[in-house]
Every structure is written in C-alpha cells, then in structure tokens.
C-alpha cells in the first residue's frame, strides 16, 4: 500500500470520528443549556475547549453566544474541525484513497457529505438542531457499518481503525481535560445539583449515560465516572478500550508486514504503565497530570505512526 494511501485512510476515519464527536458535544451543550442548571455561557466555553476550537472561535468572534458557538462548531468553513469541515475533509481523503475503499464505503461517505452539505447550507434553527445532529451521526454510522461489513481485514482496514481510535481516545481525553476538576475526590461525593449536571454532561458527551447507569448503578459518583471513561474496557470510548484497539491494529500490521513498528512498543508501554491500574492509582498520580500525559502520548503515537509507515516523504 502507498504511504499516501495509509495517510488518507487514517485521516478519513479520524475526520469521520471527529464529525461524530463534535456533533455529540453540540448536542450535550444544547441539552445542558436547556436544563438551565449550568451557567450556560461558561458551559459553551468549555465545550468549545473540549472540541479544541476555542482559540479559533475567539479569533473570529468578539463575544461568546450560544448561537455563534453552535454555528462555529457545526458549519463554519473557517473552522477546520467544524462538523461540515470534518465531513468534507473525510470525503476529500476518501476521494484520495478511493481505490482502497469498497464501492459501498465510498458511496456512504459521499452521500454523508452530500446530505451534510444540504442540511448545513444555512444556519440551523434550534428546533431543527436535534434532527440535524441525529442525521449526521446516523450518516457517520452508515460509513462505519459499510466499512465493517464490506472491507477486507487487511492493512487498509488497520489504518482506518487506527485513525478512528486515535481520534476517539483524543476526544475522550479532551473531555476529561476540560472537566477533570468535577471528578476530583475533593469534590463532594454526594453531589449537588450542579455536580450532577456536570457529571451528566461528561456522560452525554460519550453517549455513555445508559451504559454507566447499568454497570455502576444510579448512585455512582465521580470516581466511577473516571473509572468508566479511563479504564473500563467494556466502554467503547474509554482510553483503555481505544488504546487496546490501536494496539490490536498495530499488531495486525506487524503480522502482515513482518515488522513491529516503534508505535506498537509505545502503545504497549502506555497500557502497562497507565491503563492496567485501578482508578486510585490514577488519582494518586494526579488526575490532571494523568490526562495531560495521555494527550501528549496520543500525539506522540500519531507521529510515530506517520513516520513509521511513511505517510509523507
């Protein structure tokens, strides 16, 4: 496979995952704003930060308003990580690697793009927002479904999956980065109304409310939420789960190519050092420091993969 193709697949799936995650963040923000329990402008600031687009927003806007924040994250072409920009970038990468994709994956991607363009051609009103965000996520799911249902399990698939899970781990780590303080043990373990809203924000942002309730019970608090998002291997958006998937796919590549990449060694280290512990060890390390470390390591793995598999000249 061409290095360029591996690069295109990696980014196609990263952007697809990003579109989905950003749409989930917008939905979360909207939901919290409606409950009127959180101080809503602050909430939008932290959501912009979580999506990694706050600096861009501030450069383009004088004030922070809900509508402007939503529009920036949803459809502003000046924001390279807006939902619309991400889907366009995913499709652009898909065009580049068209020969590596099945017909069904290409068509799902292309039609996701066409639909997103249609839905996001003008500002989305509050009433239409849930429907539009739902459609975006369904379209992304369709691409993922076509990918799982029709693509060969070869190196093409491995790079697609590595892109997906690196982006997802990064997203979960950023959610924790922005909200870590509400999960600290010093915060009340009983939880005020405001705490409860904050915890719910975190769980909504990873589509994890139902799963969390089922596994940890309705009364569970911040310690369990941290456990759930960081170490729980059953949770498909937890750091441990994503890292495990990245390792699996790097191992498949090592098998197919007869050569282990440095990134694989790094991922094994990270799992060993950070993700096979219990949550108390994480708190002992310092939750904030732990999250910063994870963000740095994810970026490092990304770079090792780019270099090791010759994405660029």
């Amino acid at each position: 496979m061409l290095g360029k193709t591996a690069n295109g697949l990696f980014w196609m799936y990263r952007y697809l995952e990003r579109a989905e995650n950003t749409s989930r963040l917008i939905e979360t923000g909207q939901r919290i704003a409606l409950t009127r329990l959180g101080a809503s402008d602050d909430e939008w600031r932290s959501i912009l930060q979580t999506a990694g687009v706050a600096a861009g927003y501030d450069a383009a806007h004088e004030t922070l308003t809900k509508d402007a924040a939503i529009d920036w994250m949803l459809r502003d072409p000046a924001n390279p990580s807006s939902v619309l920009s991400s889907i366009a970038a995913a499709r652009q990468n898909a065009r580049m690697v068209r020969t590596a994709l099945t017909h069904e994956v290409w068509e799902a991607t292309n039609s996701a793009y066409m639909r997103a363009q249609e839905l996001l051609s003008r500002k989305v009103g509050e009433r239409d927002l849930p429907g539009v965000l739902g459609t975006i996520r369904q379209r992304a799911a369709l691409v993922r479904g076509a990918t799982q249902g029709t693509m060969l399990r070869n190196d093409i698939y491995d790079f697609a999956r590595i892109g997906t899970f690196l982006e997802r781990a990064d997203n979960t780590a950023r959610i924790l980065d922005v909200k870590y303080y509400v999960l600290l043990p010093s915060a009340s373990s009983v939880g005020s109304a405001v705490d409860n809203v904050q915890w719910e924000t975190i769980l909504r942002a990873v589509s994890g409310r139902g799963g969390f309730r089922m596994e940890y019970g309705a009364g569970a608090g911040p310690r369990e939420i941290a456990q759930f998002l960081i170490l729980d291997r059953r949770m498909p958006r937890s750091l441990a789960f994503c890292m495990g998937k990245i390792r699996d796919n790097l191992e498949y590549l090592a098998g197919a190519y007869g050569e282990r990449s440095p990134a694989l060694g790094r991922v094994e280290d990270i799992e060993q050092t950070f993700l096979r512990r219990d949550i108390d060890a994480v708190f002992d390390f310092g939750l904030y420091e732990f999250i910063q470390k994870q963000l740095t390591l994810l970026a490092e793995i990304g770079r090792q993969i780019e270099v090791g598999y010759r994405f660029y000249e």
Partner: protein
Amino acid sequence: MGEESIFDEMWGRAGALREPYRSFNDWLGAEDPKRLRAKQREAEDLFRLTGITFNVYGRAEAEERLIPFDIIPRIVSGGEWLRLSRGIEQRVRAINAFLYDIYHGQEMIKAGRLPAEMISRNEAFLPHMIGVSPPGGIYTHIVGIDLVRTGPDEFYVLEDNARTPSGVSYMLENRETMLQMFPELFARNRVQPVQTYPADLLRSLAASAPQCAGSNPTVAVLTPGIYNSAYFEHAFLADQMGVELVEGHDLRVVDGRVAMRTTQGYKPIDVLYRRVDDDFLDPLNFNPESALGVPGIMDVYRAGGITIANAPGTGIADDKAIYSYMPEIVEFYTGERPLLGNVPTWRCSEPEALAHVLAHLDELVVKEVHGSGGYGMLIGPTSSKKELAAFRQKLMARPSNYIAQPTLSLSTVPVFSRAGLSPRHVDLRPFVLMGPDGIKITPGGLTRVALKKGSLVVNSSQGGGTKDTWVLED
C-alpha cells in the same frame, strides 16, 4: 457533406426507422414518458452518488460537476462497427509506425512525403525521444479516435488522441447505469459488452512491460491529483485494474528504477500509465517547475527501466497540422489506402490556404493546431461579426498556429427532452488498446452529444453530454 439534409442515426434522412433501432423503438413506444423522466433523474442521482464528476478548469477547486447523461442509447449495427473498426485499427497502426519513424530514421521525410519543418518546428516533437525505442515498440498504448458521421456509411476522423485520451470511464459507467436502470433492454438487444476494458487495459499494459520486469509486472496509474478535471477517471481505472493510483510525490528514482513509496518502503514500478502531460513528467528533463512528475524518470525510461504509457512524445500525432497529413501517413506506413477519411483541412501556414480561409471565415471551423477540449476554436457559422473580426486578427498574427475545416453536417441521435425525442448532434470516441500482441478496440466508445439544439460543440467543458453507445451483435 455540404448542403444536404442532416442524417439522423435513428430516423435516417427521410424519417424511416433504421434497422439497429427497431427493437429499441418498440420498447420505447410502450414506455410511459413520465417513468422515463423519473429514470433520467435517477440516472443523475446515481452519477452523483458514485462521484462521476469532473472539475471545471478555472473555477473554485471544490466545484465538481456532472456531465449530463442522456438515457437514449446510440445504436450501431455490428456490420457498421466492423467496417469502422478496420479503419480505426489501420489508422492506429500507422500512427504508431509514424511515431517510431519520426524519432528514428525519418523515412517519410526522406521520401519527400512530409515536410521536414512539420517535425523539426513542431512544439509537440520531443527531441529527448530521438533514438529511444520504447519497450515492445509501442508508443500509443491507449488511443481515442474522434469520429463524426455524416451519412449511413460516411465516417470521418475529426482528431486523433494519442497523448492521454480521456473519457473511457464514462463509456463504462454509462453502460453500468443503463444496465441498472433498464435491464430489460439488454435482454431484448444483443449488445456487445464493454466491461472487459479494464482487464484488457491491464493485460495490454503488462504485456508492454520492460525486459527488467518479472513475470507479474507492477502497473500503476499516475494522476496529477484530486483537483485534476479527470481525477475520477484516474481513480476509477486504477480501482478497476486493482493497481495503485500514484502522484508524483509518491515516486522517486531508487537504484535506477522508478519506485513508489509504500508503507513498507520503496517498491519498483514496471509500467506507468501516466495521465500527466509530457511537459510535467520529469522536472529534470522538461518543465523544472513541475511538481506533478518524477525527477529523473526520463533517464530511467531511456535506460529501459520502465514503460511509460503512452510514450513521451506521442502528442505530436495529435497535432492538427500533422492530422492534415494523416491520409499520406496511413498510406506510407501501411501501403494501403486509408479506410477512414479525414475532414478536408486547410493548413493556414500555407499562403493560398490562408487566403481561402480568410475569405470564407464565416463558413469554416478554425482550430489551434495544439488545442484540445474545444478551447480556442472558432465556429464560423455560429459566430458574431465581432467574434469573427477578433479571430481574424489572431489568425493573421500567427497563421501557422491554425487549421481550418468545413462545417460538417454531423449526424444526430435523439435525446430525451421535455418535448419527447429531439435530434442532437453527436460524435464518437472509440478506445483502442495497443500492445506487442496486438490491437483491441472496445465495441462502442464514448458518444458525446451537443445538448443545445443545433449546436455542434460536444465537449463536456462546453456543455456537452454523453450517451451509452451500443454495438449490436448482428
């Protein structure tokens, strides 16, 4: 040619249904026009979903457009096709022999059958190719011959495309779309298949591999990238052949071979089907500004380390001044009379011809000798006085840059319009594959249709559409 009425391929000149269309017409008569209209829209959706689009030069890079597709097929009988394909094969053989000759002994010039300056002063002549023998002796691996029809048995070659002919993906996707939308039509009509083209192309390219290649040569398609107007086709062909689609920055010369950067290191390529012009192929040997090519590929090529398809320097065969000598070229290299006619052509470089052209500018079609895609040409009869005057200036300033031809009364084929069937002018580009083991012509080709009533311009860049082209088994 000239004043007689226009030949319609379905209804002839006098309105009598022609034989190849009989079964189709029965089917059409039983169809509800509303359903057909819905099908026409369905076809557009299919094309858009598949991403069969082209980028328009000079517009925002994001803009991708559909080439309009018309659901009424163009139908040619097996007998008509057989005669046509003999002429095409003869012409392609002659072009390949001509290319070998002008880059080697130049026998045709020595024999006084072609003026030396036609070659020596020709911008499309590539001195780097002098004395170079491409693997298998093949210059023109892929050729598209543009034909127009003026009567039941009158076909003329409008131009030869030996450089990098495009459009074959439309031939294939048009058929695919028709098969999906109207399967019953293919049960009623025995239409010769076109779907073998990608496999034939791969076989033909692999057979042209250089000596140094193993028994299973590595083929790749070279594209200028996703912003190129024909990118869809490049990706489509690579995909259909199951080979890599590469860009210049994926390639470099490693140990005397052209190699592509894979996830596991550099891997040599044996045959490069390039969709990049000569000029951009090698910044070391040609345009130093080019970012599309591979530095040093020409040196590897000259040393026999790679096959480039089509060979560099073939563009001279597309030159419209060379075109005017094509009857002589066919005769000289095949020893036979040409089976396919040329459109009569005035070379404006010749003073007498120029005088004639200037006197009849409003009746003629004037083209740039190196032009393509319908850009930079004048269609006298449909141009305004102002346009004619402006073109006259350009023509007098650089006569040798132009040739002129009479306006042919091109045949028409009906298109499906709001008002029912309406005749529109068409041309035809059959695709020819040439390898050391022979020539293969896919039955059919790309029919381009001028969608505007009365218009003779079929180029997609100028608002033309396409049709599925059927060659029947007789």
